[in-house]
């Protein structure tokens, strides 16, 4: 089946099995291994990507559903080699240990900030509550998001 969508800002058309999981399409067919899989059942958030500006779990999305959509993966967060402010903040704040949850976590954080939902520690923790991390205990991730909010000067919308 032919599927056309915008991937990380580029128009993309490809052939894929319609019921191929998007996480597999990204990792195996497109060699974009930044999106991870850690449970396959929507429980951990490691496979988080963005569709039309909203976070989704790519392990529970099928290729056919991408038709006509705007898709962003972790590879599309930075501008070339220049880190997105969220990525810079994750690095500076020590929010990365093993790094396996990081792509999903960073995209989620960027999404929160973009939608003005990173105004308080409580809001941030709720916002990342669907992304499990086994290494950090979440505290430095929250600090990183707060740092990124400062950097981007995004005021909370609520």
């Amino acid at each position, binding site marked *: 089946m032919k599927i056309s969508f915008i991937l990380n800002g580029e128009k993309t058309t490809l052939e894929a099995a319609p019921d191929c999981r998007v996480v597999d399409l990204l990792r195996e067919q497109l060699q974009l*291994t*930044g999106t991870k899989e850690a449970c396959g059942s929507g429980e951990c958030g490691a496979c988080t990507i963005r569709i039309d500006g909203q976070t989704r779990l790519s392990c529970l999305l099928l290729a056919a559903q991408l038709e006509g959509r705007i898709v962003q993966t972790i590879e599309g967060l930075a501008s070339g080699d220049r880190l997105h402010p969220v990525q810079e903040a994750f690095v500076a704040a020590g929010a990365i240990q093993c790094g396996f949850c990081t792509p999903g976590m960073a995209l989620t954080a960027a999404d929160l900030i973009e939608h003005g939902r990173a105004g308080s520690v409580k809001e941030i923790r709720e916002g990342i509550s669907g992304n499990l991390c086994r290494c950090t205990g979440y505290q430095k991730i929250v600090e990183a998001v707060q740092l990124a909010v400062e950097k981007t000067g995004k005021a909370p919308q609520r």
Partner: protein
Amino acid sequence: MIDANPILHVGRSIPRADAAEKALGREKFAADHYGENLLWAGVRRAGIPHGRLRSIEADEARRLPGVLAVLTHADVKGSNRQGVIRKDQPVLVDDKIRHCGDALALVVAESRRALTRALSLVGFDHEPLQAVFDPEDALVDSAPRIHEDAADGNVLLAGAVRTGRGAAALDQCDVVAEARFDLPMQEHAYLETEAGRAILNESGVLEIVVSTQTPFRDRAEVAEALGIDAERIRIIAPYCGGAFGGKDGISVQSLLGLAASRFPGRPIKMWWSREESFLSSPKRHAARLYYRLGAMRDGRLHALDVRAYYDTGPYDHLGGVVMALGLEHAGGPYRIANVSLKGWAVYTNNPIGGAFRGFGVPQVTAAMEQMLDRIAEKLELSPLELRLRNAVRQRDKNPVGVTLSTSTGLVDCLKTLETHPAWTTATAWKAAAGPHRMRGVGIACVMHAMGYGPLVPDTANAKIELTPEGRFRIYCGVVDMGQGNISTYLQIAGDILSQDMDHMEPVLPDTEKTLPCGSASASRTTYTFGNALIEAAGLLRQRIIERAAGLLMAPADDKVVLIPGAVRHLPTGRDIPLADLARRLGTAERTATGRFRAPTAKEVVTDDPSLRLHGMAHLLFSYGAHLAGVEIDTLTGRVDVCRYLAVTDCGRLINPQLFEQQIHGGIAQGLGYALYEQFIADKGRILTPDLTTYIIPSALDVPEMMSVAIEQPEHTGPFGLKGAGEIAVDGPLPAVANAVADACGRPFHTFPLTAERVLDSLSREKQDGGYRR
């Protein structure tokens, strides 16, 4: 020691060297390796806890389109046995099935779909055997034998340490407390499940990229198990997506090697699903502990009697070492003149008990720290006061009889806790509990040994090279599974060589490129390798300065110093770029190696050679004091941790941010162990087989954590450092348990403290007529 070189990096919170690539999603984990014409390998697992294997039915699977092979033990040419101390785990079962996760057959297919279908078609015939699921039951003479060839029934290892009058001294005590504790299995739940990719390349070398903590040991194990020359095996260990001990040992390596050998030139990938990881990988040992602790009226602990049963499941998997370390820590960091400590690591048909951050110590700490609070109650002393009176200081003997000649900062940890607002405001905080809420504050002391004990050498070999481009390449042999040790190595070497971090590059562990350095475990990854690296970097630095002085024809080489990117002759201000210098040196001159073997305890606390081999006893310990403030919802029983403080003695900090990362992560896992992570197995079958039913904490479940470091230097450590990787996980369960007991007046002995357990206890409390405070 380093001469008058300005410290550039050590002590500073430099961002990690691996962070940017991970933030970009560009860092490739083992699970991210694929290949052209990739084959997929997967395992048919037993699904029954105990049985004698009769035959495997694979014909239907083999006929499936896309299936290239179904391999069994008959295809394994070597010993078909794996293990670190006792090699008792098969690559593919050839005699008995000993747990539900046992591997029976290996399917190789062209697609994951074909693989999944084929696995469902592989059957087997077996003779069911009686199984055993409780470690004390397994010790009974009539219990089913897990390993018929084991020397001592179902005992993997038994150990005992006795000092003074042992348990008899309890008779002399003014107060005695007694309790039994049941600690559950805990699942690592690293986000990257077990994964690897292997290929038998055109030079006949079996190359395996794998998520592992032990590349060199893996190579030896694969060689022996499969009957391949170790020289023809190359293991490459990228950054692990978490491990925590669960990848301290063979997972996919031999299976991949078997498949790859069968299809030379084809890349073969294996990546365990979350459910398969739950089923097959080792867990933290479930443990049953019987404690009797006695003290004198003046607050001195006087006698301790412990019996500790560690359920090690069907295979060695370091289970004896875990039990031995637990036994060594069973008395905690206290002065106790009379102890009788007995431990057993027992075979059962439960899931495998193996290495998990903490390694036997969380279990005994859970028990001992609660026993201390029981004694404090009986003596009407504050829990803090009792601990201060008995805490070990440098030169004391610890409960197993080792003189603490290395840095011992426990008292400073306790004194710091004592003046911290988390403790000083405790009374007021507890009184402010709202409707349907009870609050409590509890503390726990922790200690954690580093290294492998007196017999197994804890050594590391570091190699460092000045590249022709003028950069420094550190050959790191110890795996980085997220703890940031590789970044720390760059920081150490950068400091000694006066270079910026962008002049440093790591080579990740690779049996073909890096030198053997031991496992990423035992809180040793920075201590041991760091010391070897200091030697290597120092040698290289000296050599560079000498050569540069020679080139400059400078009279004395102590006026030549390294600066970022160059060597400078101070009197003239002349610089030689490192790249220029490098071009004038031969390869051997540009490379320096260092070797370090960690010091060991001189006292022999046991004449049991097996117990010594398994680690009894250690020399270097980190210490800490933890505090938890909890709020119980009396309508639901839910325990919320509202405040958490860890005061830690890990020597001097090379990178405070990295240190804090370890403390935070350890606390979070410890809180999971305390409150959420109920691993349920019923007759060997796992009833919590995935992340939906096995609950690890989310961002809404972990509180704000406060971490304070007591920086007392440890003179044998690199820049004064001690290990920090494990100690934080030892504290939360007892701190929380003590806090809950403080809130509701009842102690708890079975864990985790789920809301249901707590509410159950509270309602029984009500029936007994009120809460005892």
